[in-house]
């Protein structure tokens, strides 16, 4: 039985979700999966993960919106959010500006294409 905490992986690319999940599971983490923002919230409410690896560009509800909702909800704001960002954004901060001017504060971020070893370092620092 593992003492590691549940990680939710959210991306609309099933290959990426599978690859990240396999890596996490190989390190003993239990994993839940979601493929858009709406599903992500369903999983968060059902399974209450310790950490969410969250893609930004997704159908139905994007990662910024999901991150905002997590961080503004007193019941869920302690969940760690790691945003997956596209290379072109060249992000160096966890505070992001939406097109509509709203800012989002995630706990951490990792650029795509994902360095799985770097991702594991981030996950271990928050959830092991």
């Amino acid at each position, binding site marked *: 039985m593992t003492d590691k905490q549940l990680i939710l992986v959210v991306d609309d690319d*099933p290959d990426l979700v*599978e690859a990240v999940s396999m890596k996490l599971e190989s390190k003993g983490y239990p994993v839940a999966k979601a493929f*858009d923002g709406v599903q992500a919230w369903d999983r968060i409410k059902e399974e209450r993960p310790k950490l969410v690896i969250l893609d930004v560009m997704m*159908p*139905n509800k994007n990662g910024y919106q999901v991150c905002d909702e997590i961080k503004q909800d007193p019941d869920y704001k302690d969940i760690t959010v790691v945003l997956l960002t596209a290379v072109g954004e060249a992000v160096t901060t966890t505070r992001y500006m939406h097109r509509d001017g709203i800012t989002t504060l995630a706990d951490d971020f990792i650029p795509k294409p994902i360095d799985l070893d770097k991702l594991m370092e981030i996950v271990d620092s928050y959830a092991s």
Partner: protein
Amino acid sequence: MDRIRIDGIKLSGELALVRLASHPRPQFALSCGCGIMAANRINMPFVSAACVGDGARASWCVEMEERARAKALLDGNPDLEGYAEIVPSVGLVSLFPHRSSIAFLGRALQALGKAALPVHGLTSSLAPLTFVTDYALLEEAAAALEVFFALPPHQRPIRTHVQVAQSPIRKDEGPDGNGSGPS
């Protein structure tokens, strides 16, 4: 009959299928064609290489608005001129995870065949099994697959609405445009 439980079905936007099926040197054609697409930063959201007899026969998809440019570039190459065939207005329907199951593939082909839906190509990757069909029939394809595959409760097929494009080639990048543009 029990339906196979899956995590999701994903539908693409409108694409064009590129084939180099009748080239006498299929492996060369595949490598040359992919090289031309990469050098000109034309995204290929689907690539399939089928081993038939003497080598790999390639097909791939490009965004609909890139189909004329792709055709012109392929026809402009002396080794590929006249071999590129474009099938406009196709779409991808992906179901996942396939778990490397032949039964999964068989059931999916049965579903699409029973609904008399065209399959222009198919491929598998780590999680999804993906079929190319007519764009206008994507919803019908998803419905046909749902007869044989069970999505999680309250879940509908996901439709891609994010289109990824690469930035134009800069002059300082050299003639092959080799660089890592934003994705």
